[in-house]
Every structure is written in C-alpha cells, then in structure tokens.
C-alpha cells in the first residue's frame, strides 16, 4: 500500500490522491480476498477444476475494479486529471487486482487443501489405532476363553470315542485361529473368503452344540466377489449364536443372507431371541457397537448397521459400500 502511494506520488500526484487511491484500492482488494477465502470454506473446486479458480478470480477482479473506480471517482469527482488517469490505468489496475486475487485464491485453496489432508491423516490414524485395538479385541474375542476351552473340551471328549472326528476338529480349530491371526482388520476381503472363515467357526460350534444349532447361508451369485472388511462377519454371527443359544432352549436357526444391490453388499443375520427376558434389549450389545464403530471409521457412515426385533427374531443388517 505504502509502495503504491510512493509510486503514484512519484508520478506527480499529490500525496492526498496517492494515499487515498492506495488505501481504497488495497482495502477493496482485501475485501475481495476475504470473500474468496471464505467462499472456499463452503465450496472448493477439486484439483482438476483449476479453471474455476481462474474464472472466479477474473470475475472477482472485475467486480473489485468497478468498486474501486466508483469509490475513487466519488471522492475525487472534481479532479478531472485524476479521473482520466483512472480511466487510462484501468487495464493495469484490472491486471493488478486479478493477480492479487488469484494469488490469494491459490494460497487459500492450498491452505484448505492442507487442512483437509491433515484431517484425513488424523482420521486414518484413528482408524488404524482402532483397527489395532479391534485386532486385539477380536483376538481376545476369538480366543474367547469360553469358546476355546469348550472347544478343547469337545475335542477331548471326541478323542476317546471318535478319534477321527477329534482330529478333524483340531484341524478346524487350528485353521480358524490361524485365519484370525493372519488377517489384517484394514484389509478388504471377498465375501467368498469371509464365508470360508465363517464356515470353520460354524463347524466348530456345531460340534459343540450338536443338533441345537442349525445354520443356513444364502447368497447371490453376484455377492461372492463383493468385498467387505476382514473379520467383520464372524463376530456378528458369533453374537447371534450367543443370543440364540443362551436366550432360548431347543433348536435354533441362525440365518446369514448376502445380497448384492446397487454397489452395496447387504448382509442380513437373524437369530431367535426371547423378547421378554432378553438381555439384548439393552441396545445393540457390545459386539455390535464395536462393529458399528469400525464401519464408521472405514466408510464415515453411521447408518450401515441396523437391528430390528420382530416377535422372536432378532435381525442384524449390515450394508457394505463397494469402493
């Protein structure tokens, strides 16, 4: 601003005119810069749309020029020399405005861009942290002492009378545990893979609970190649089995259904429960709330897991967006 005033003063304009011109020009520019910066907060063109910034700044520079001219010609309406100078310098002023606005725009765009990067980075870190925690939690859950010791007890029982079956169950338990240890929570796997892992778990539980536990898995042809986060389905089914088996007596049917629909993999898990005595009345239960959290961190959506209760059937529905 000061430089501009000196410059104009050296061009033989009075200090009054030089300073006023500089102050008004710069103030209007500052206003324009501020407007550009603020508008970026609400809408920021993507990296590919640099053209927008150029057009915006060209228009903004024009608008600012009109404002500057109007203000200056109001103040110095009697100074005809100055007014003609103002007209002659229009192109230069416009260029100057545009350069300044474009500069501010680029800086402010970069500023927001970096901020978003930082936020993304932080979200990613949070997701990784949680993944680590769930990894631990899921390890603890799958190495769930109840599951593990009861499975070992079943194997011990089989070893006496049906050694072949005992050997098979040792194999299944080992494969299941290995799958749990090997998999990374952040990894996306196909439904096909996840169902294989789930089958091992179901086979073990069926040996433990015998006829009481019935399962059915239904899936679309299109669904098997769709992707979902690793180790997501098994804890949900485990939850369903736990409620089903401990909330009722007699046979229970756990059904797992997978459908492909418009870029979404929909998983529907149902289990019977007792509406009167069920402790699952208490919200979604621990198992499911950690799943909900994981889905949020992966897809930034809170509406992907829903549960419904229909008489004596508890349904968990999970939607997995296909990225």
């Amino acid at each position, binding site marked *: 601003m000061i430089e501009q005033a000196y410059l104009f003063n050296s061009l033989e304009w009075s200090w009054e005119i030089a300073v006023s011109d500089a102050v008004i020009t710069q103030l209007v520019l500052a206003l324009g810069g501020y407007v550009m910066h603020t508008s970026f907060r609400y809408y920021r063109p993507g990296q590919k749309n640099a053209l927008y910034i150029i057009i915006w700044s060209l228009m903004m520079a024009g608008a600012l020029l009109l404002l500057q001219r109007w203000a200056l010609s109001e103040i110095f309406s009697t100074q005809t020399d100055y007014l003609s100078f103002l007209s002659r310098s229009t192109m230069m002023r416009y260029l100057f405005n545009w350069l300044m606005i474009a500069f501010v725009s680029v800086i402010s765009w970069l500023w927001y861009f970096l901020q978003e990067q930082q936020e993304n980075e932080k979200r990613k870190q949070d997701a990784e942290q949680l993944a680590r925690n769930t990894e631990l939690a899921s390890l603890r859950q799958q190495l769930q*002492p*109840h599951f593990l*010791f*009861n499975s*070992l*007890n*079943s*194997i*011990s*029982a*089989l070893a*006496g*009378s049906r050694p072949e079956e005992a050997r098979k169950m040792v194999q299944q338990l080992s494969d299941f545990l290995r799958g749990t240890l090997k998999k990374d929570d952040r990894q996306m796997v196909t439904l096909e893979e996840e169902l294989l892992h789930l089958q091992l778990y179901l086979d073990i539980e069926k*040996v*433990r*609970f*015998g006829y*009481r536990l019935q399962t059915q898995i239904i899936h679309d042809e299109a669904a098997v190649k769709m992707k979902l986060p690793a180790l997501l389905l098994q804890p949900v089914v485990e939850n369903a089995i736990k409620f089903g*088996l*401990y*909330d*009722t*007596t007699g046979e229970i049917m756990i059904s797992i259904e997978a459908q492909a629909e418009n870029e979404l993999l929909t998983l529907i898990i149902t289990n019977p429960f*007792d509406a*009167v*005595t069920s*402790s699952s*009345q*208490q919200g979604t239960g621990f198992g499911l709330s950690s799943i909900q959290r994981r889905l949020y961190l992966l897809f930034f959506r809170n509406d992907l897991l829903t549960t419904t209760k229909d008489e004596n059937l508890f349904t968990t529905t999970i939607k997995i967006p296909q990225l």
Partner: protein
Amino acid sequence: MIRTILIDDEPLARSMVKEYLQHHAEIEIVAECNDGFEGVKAIGQHKPDLIFLDIQMPKINGFEMLELLESPPAVIFTTAFDEYAIKAFESHAIDYLLKPFSKERFDKALQKWMSVRNAVESKNTSALIESVAQPEERQRIVVKKGANIVIVPVHAVYYIEAYDDYVKIHTKEGFYLKKKTMSHYEQALDPALFVRVHRSYLLNVQELTKIEPMEKDNHVALLKNGMRIPLSQSGYTKLRSVLGI
C-alpha cells in the same frame, strides 16, 4: 448306589463325564439334562445324591437353577471359564472341574466328595449361591411360581421386601418368594437402580414418583402403582444421593 445327574448344554461335555464315570460302578447316571429347566425337573423327580453342573447354560445358569431347588443336592461344578464363579468356589472350599479336565482330576474330585459325603454338603451349596453375585443377576431374577419357572427382568421389579428367611419380589404380576437375603440383592443389583431405602425394602428408583413427609422426620416413597413404602432416615439420605437431590 450313588445316583447322579449330568447337567450341561453341550452333549460332548456330558459324554466326557459319562465316559469317566464308566470306571465308577457305584455311580449310576439317572438323567442327563440340556439346561436348567430340565435340571430342576429331573432333580425333583429323581432326588439325586450328586449332580455335575455346568454354569453357562441357556435361559438360566447353573446358580440360578440351584436357587430354584428346595434342598439342592451335592454339586460338582464343571466350567470352562467363569472367573466370578471360580472365586466363589474357592472362598467356599467347593470343588470344581475346569474344562477340559483329566480323568485323574475327575477321580480326585469324586474321591474327595465321597469322603465327606453325608456331611453338610447341601448347606455349603446354599451358602455358595447366597454369596455369589452372578453377572446375570443385574439383568434378571429367576423365580418359581408353583411348578413354573419365571424369569423376571430386573426392570420389571417394583421393589424387594424382606420376609423372614425369604424375600418378596414385587412385580406387576404380583410377588414372588425367593430364599435369599436383602443384602444379597443389595450387592447383586445395580446400585444406581435399586436402593436400600429401609431395612426391609429395596426400591427400584424408576418406579418412584414422589417422596412425602410423614410425622416427625420420617418420609414415605410413593410408587407409580400407588404403593407406599416407608423410608428409614438413612434410606432417605441414600435415596436422595442416588437421585441427586
């Protein structure tokens, strides 16, 4: 002949015990049960000398099943992993088997029971179930009404009243009797939900509508269903602190 019943929801776990018992000709298995309901029925019918009892079972757990029995038989607990239960066993010197257990360990437990047989086994069991606060008790109370077993969710309980050696559990459907103490429920239930407002009353605060002053410094609690429960002085203070008033 010693008569025994196996109660476990996992068939293979029962077959394991059965196999170990083959070497004990003096023991006869009179029944096998999948859950606590079947257990109560079979015990009433067969009056066994000894039962092998799992803890985590459908609908009602092993402890809840024992609570329903007039005079529980001697018990050898079999469990995979229930930390709270194991602590209780140890503090009452009651033997238990951790799954999977060896034949030697099984024989030892049986031997130990045989040597102290006819002693005060049943009394021990009662003391055990009185002292153990099961995590399930925060959710539900299992009671008997005639021949039926009723599972009462704790939020459906209005209040619990002392009644000689029993407690009366008051609900919308009337009251149920249970052979437990007030202090047991005071410990086992969520203290933010159930407040001991009087020596003889444990109140579900969600049922409270009003506290009214009585003569002298006494107060009475008015429940949503119109019932009135006296508050002792310390009970009144406790209630106020729980309600934050």
